[in-house]
């Protein structure tokens, strides 16, 4: 059902092809983002500057979404992490300039209707990403050698 609504929204809100890709990868579905989705988005950060800004704007929106949409936030962190490794250098600059967006997610809170703490994964992911963004040398090395970070940004299997 959510999939149908999303594709209707994609049309009525006039989202571009690039924006739709990011929206799908960071949706409320209980799976994903897949490795294929992330690698395609990362590759698109090298395209035109319009593509780049559309990707970052959409990730930014997702990162600042409300608690109920915690999957948006968690997936956006995963996609950002992936793009920091495989995407263009502009992603690194953008993320460093706007590090407070990620940093302030380290205390993200959301308890769902069944009393489950859905914020935990976000807090952990935000802590890891903040540490990475503050460590230039580590980020540079990980951008050169993808083996060292691959398990961290592997696709989310199930929520």
């Amino acid at each position, binding site marked *: 059902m959510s999939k149908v609504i999303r594709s209707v929204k994609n049309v009525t809100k006039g989202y571009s092809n690039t924006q739709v890709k990011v929206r799908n990868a960071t949706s409320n579905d209980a799976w994903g983002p897949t490795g294929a989705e992330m690698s395609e988005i990362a590759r698109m950060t090298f395209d035109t500057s319009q593509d780049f*800004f559309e990707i*970052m*704007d959409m990730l*930014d929106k997702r990162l*600042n979404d*409300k*608690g109920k949409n915690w999957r948006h936030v968690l997936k956006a962190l995963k996609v950002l992490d992936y793009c920091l490794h495989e995407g263009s250098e*502009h992603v690194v*600059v*953008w993320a460093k*300039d*706007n590090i*407070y*967006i990620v*940093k*302030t*997610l380290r*205390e*993200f*809170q959301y308890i769902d209707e069944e009393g489950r*703490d859905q914020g*935990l994964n976000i*807090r952990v992911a935000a*802590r890891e990403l903040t*540490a990475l963004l503050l460590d230039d040398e580590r980020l540079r090395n990980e951008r050169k050698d993808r083996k060292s970070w691959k398990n961290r940004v592997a696709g989310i299997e199930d929520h």
Partner: protein
Amino acid sequence: GTTRNVDMSRSESDLTINIKKATNAEETAPKRKHVRSCIVYTWDHKSSTSFWTGMKVQPIMADEVQTFKALITIHKVIQEGHINTLKEAQAHVGWIESLGRGMIGDGLRGYGPLIKEYIHFLRAKLQFHRHHPEFNGLFEYKEYISLKSVNDPNEGYETVSDLMTLQDQIDSFQKLVFAHFRHGVNNECRISSLVPLVQESYGIYRFVTNMLRAMHRTTGDDEALSPLRERYNGQHHRLVRFYYECSNLRYLTSLITIPDLPQDPPSLLSEDDAPALP
């Protein structure tokens, strides 16, 4: 540029709503999402002017819970907001002090002493930052500051001393918070004031550890530094106890990582690495 694409016209009215919700009269923690929005606002605008304006129009003095939540919110925004927030806060010290004047005695729900102590602490913190503008609100480690102070041992001595005074103030405040827990009720609102205190005390601890090690290394004057070592050891033991007590509060441990300090203070004379970040 690579700055975020922010709708500046909307963000001002959103900020007012966020401040209002963060400081409402419900006896809970100030909601993180609203506090976060205030913090993000100061970064997007590189200014906290609207935050203070928005705070001052809220009826926070009418209710002790609202006053206490406002103080927690202010503390968090000062800690995590854009560095200009810390500078701009200096102009509002008088207003922060005025928040305690309406309180008579303990208050119906017992927040009176906590409000007074929070105000006292924030005044001390802002005073520290006025004298030491090189520190950010959370005392996050920056190598150059310890190097700078090491070059001038007198300045270093004074800075460490001032940091330790602030650490003592955090310690008295946290003790008061624990002493004011109430049986049979959810203490979330009180406990949430411990979050910024844990973070700040650990930032100070790391800083002081690094600076004292560097000063021992470069001056080689162990005797002159012995008063600071003694004070450091005392503070270490108090921090261990503080973090131990925090580790029993589920609300706290689910939210932040409580630092795991060794029982005994680390040697300041050795070349051991500083304690790792939690």
